């Protein structure tokens, strides 16, 4: 396959953004090669344990401690279990390191579809304020785009992907093109009413999810069956994944070639034309390296996977990346700060229970620094994701009375967890380890990313406010918890190749296009200049569709 132009474009990575890139490029007439480091998982047939009960899954679907500690010691922070482990990276075979004193959970997928098979599916638009925040605060680089630039692209991807949610008309959390929301249960409706009356200006709304509540027969997809099987792959295609949504669309054009088990090591580059001239990858089964060429390259290898490939695409003297003339590559790495939880018991309503297992519950959107409050001691804000539920009782003791006791459900409980915005810091960075390479010859990623005072203060506030809201709403036995805040743990890592207008201070321009290579687009989380406090994937989808539109127009005009 070496040095041919059988393809017009190469897409590196098959996750949420890579799948969109492949769909859009093929639908616009380009012949596309899509590469993924993981193994193939086909929609439906590749979901080995979808719909299977625990006794029909290895180890009763409880990850064995011995295996977790040997092979999934990072993935364990990302909800790996036997029924979905095939979708996860093996941490033993694919190491990385930290610099002294820092810690980062780099939770990675290991199959075609990337994190689209294992994501949490909460889907929000970013707000106008999110894109203005860096400039307003004078922190990080100003975004070169506004919310308005993305509106048509949000509209476009939402209609196709299928996002459920409630229309709320909140300026700080714009509505999507929604399917009907996943309903709140009776206890959540009670809480919403209490919380919103006790705290004017704060809201509790339906989860916004890339889980459909209406069928899309034209895509062969069925609405959510409320099974709570998402993590095993959904044969109904009820949630957005590459397999269910973008891959079938790209394949339907007849212009897609998908190659799994292909680890991209670096991009080849011609400094004279300032273009990427080839994509080098290693076949993980044979160990053979190949180089493929195309006019256009979309890099969608995940935030830090893409940064690693960019950093390993180095000038002949081996020092600096071809794509780092700004000196900002690998910098301003962020993740949501996470692991503050609040819970309590909801009194009453015990004559009702839920039927069905929803993929998500309720959301308390950001209420800090939306413009109305004074100094709260930190910048930006946080939101909470939560749910009310009843669970099987857990009686103590043993024997027939305990067995009988386990046949009842508890009263209503509520819990929620905060996701907070992390500021972009120049020295939160990743680099290549000069001394250690992985099994494909790629230098290991080395992380130095820490949360700072602003993030810590925000989480203290999230804990206090969470307890306060639950108590004021009338919950009993309110408790909160905080666990170690480790960057990466929220699996919302972003940055490292940020967008900006100034080529001296950013890696990508406002079209997600490399300042140093007109035919290279990076449209995953690496491009983000700030991280909002809401989940990012929907924004990656919109940015990808927008970038493809620009790239293909540029190709036709001869400017890419």
């Amino acid at each position, binding site marked *: 396959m070496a040095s041919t132009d059988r393809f017009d474009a190469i897409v590196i990575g098959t996750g949420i953004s890579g799948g969109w890139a492949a769909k859009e490029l093929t639908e616009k007439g380009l012949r596309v090669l899509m590469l993924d480091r993981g193994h193939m998982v086909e929609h439906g047939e590749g979901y080995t344990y979808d*719909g299977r*009960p*625990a*006794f029909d899954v*290895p*180890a*009763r679907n*409880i990850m*064995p*401690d*011995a*295996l977790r500690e*040997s092979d*999934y010691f990072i993935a364990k922070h990302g909800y790996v279990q036997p029924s979905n*482990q*095939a979708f996860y990276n*093996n941490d*033993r*075979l694919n*190491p990385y390191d930290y610099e002294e004193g820092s810690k980062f959970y780099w939770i990675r997928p290991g199959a075609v579809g990337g994190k689209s098979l294992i994501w949490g599916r909460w889907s929000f638009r970013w707000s106008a304020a999110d894109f203005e925040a860096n400039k307003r605060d004078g922190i990080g680089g100003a975004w070169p785009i506004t919310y308005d630039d993305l509106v048509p692209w949000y509209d476009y991807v939402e209609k196709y992907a299928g996002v459920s949610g409630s229309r709320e008309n909140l300026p700080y959390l714009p509505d999507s093109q929604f399917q009907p929301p*996943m*309903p*709140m*249960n*009776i206890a*959540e409706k009670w809480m919403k009413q209490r919380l919103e009356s006790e705290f004017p200006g704060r809201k509790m709304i339906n989860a916004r999810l890339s889980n459909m509540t209406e069928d899309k027969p034209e895509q062969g997809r069925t609405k959510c*069956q*409320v*099974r*709570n*099987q998402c993590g095993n792959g959904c044969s109904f295609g009820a949630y957005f994944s590459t397999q269910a949504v973008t891959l079938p669309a790209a394949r339907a054009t007849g212009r897609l070639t998908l190659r799994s088990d292909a680890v991209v090591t670096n991009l080849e580059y011609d400094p004279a034309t300032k273009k990427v001239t080839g994509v080098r990858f*290693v076949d993980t*089964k044979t*160990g053979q*390296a190949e180089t493929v060429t195309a006019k256009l390259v979309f890099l969608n290898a995940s935030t830090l996977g893409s940064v690693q490939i960019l950093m390993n695409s180095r000038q002949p003297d081996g020092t600096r990346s071809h794509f780092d003339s700004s000196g900002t590559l690998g910098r301003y790495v962020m993740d949501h700060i996470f692991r503050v939880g609040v819970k309590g018991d909801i009194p009453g309503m015990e*004559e*009702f*229970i*839920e*039927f*069905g*297992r929803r993929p998500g519950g309720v959301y308390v959107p950001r209420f800090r620094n939306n413009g109305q409050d004074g100094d709260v001691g930190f910048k930006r804000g946080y939101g909470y994701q939560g749910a009310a539920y009843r669970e*099987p009782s857990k009686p103590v*003791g*043993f*024997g*027939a009375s*305990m*067995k*009988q006791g*386990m*046949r*009842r*459900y508890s009263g209503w409980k509520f819990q929620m967890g905060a996701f907070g915005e992390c500021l972009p810091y120049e020295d939160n960075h990743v680099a290549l380890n000069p001394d*250690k*390479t*992985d*099994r*494909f*010859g790629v230098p290991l990623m080395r992380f130095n990313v820490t949360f700072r005072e602003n993030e810590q203060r925000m989480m203290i506030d999230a804990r206090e406010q969470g307890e306060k809201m639950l108590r004021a709403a009338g919950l009993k036995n309110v408790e909160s918890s905080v666990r170690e805040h480790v960057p990466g743990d929220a699996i919302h890592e972003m940055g490292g190749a940020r967008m900006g207008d100034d080529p001296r201070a950013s890696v990508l321009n406002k079209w997600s296009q490399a300042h140093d290579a007109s035919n290279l687009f990076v449209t995953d989380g690496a491009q983000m200049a700030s991280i909002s406090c809401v989940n990012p994937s929907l924004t990656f989808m919109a940015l990808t569709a927008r970038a493809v539109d620009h790239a293909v127009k540029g190709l036709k005009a001869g400017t890419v």
Partner: protein
Amino acid sequence: MDRRQALAGVLALFGAQVFAPLARAAGLAPAGVISEGAPSIQVFTPDQRALMTALSERILPTTDTPGAIAAGVPAYIEKLLADWALPEDRIPILSGLAEIDSRSRQDYKLPAVDTKPEQQDALLTLAMNDALPNGIEFFEAFRQLVITGYYTSEIGITQEREYLPVPGEYNGAFPYAQVNKVYSA
């Protein structure tokens, strides 16, 4: 330097193409494979196994639905301790069984496995109340193993509970009076 670092260093000397054979030569287990089938080692002696089996049934006895033995809980526990748990997790179980047996010989002049169910209940109660050496440590670990093994078994999921793999619709205010059994998926 740990084993992973050592291997990465060795591999760097050779480059990518020799990875697969080198990995095999380095003795790496196949990636991510969960052991299935019979336990790879005998965790229990025949006497320990008989006692563990009897006690599992005391934790979750046969009532109007089958108990732990019918649900295959003893085999689950042995498989888990042999191949899925960390080796140190066997210690509280084995030492707890020994303490219970020793107390049985003292109180009832019989091996625990030969005592009556009520006497086994009394021995488990001693462990639960930490009135045996490391009793609570054994009791909590063993109870958790039995409960997990039972409620993830076919009997636990489909007979003791109501197997509901595809609810199809969500109802957030379903009458509790219409719930016959706890739902399982």
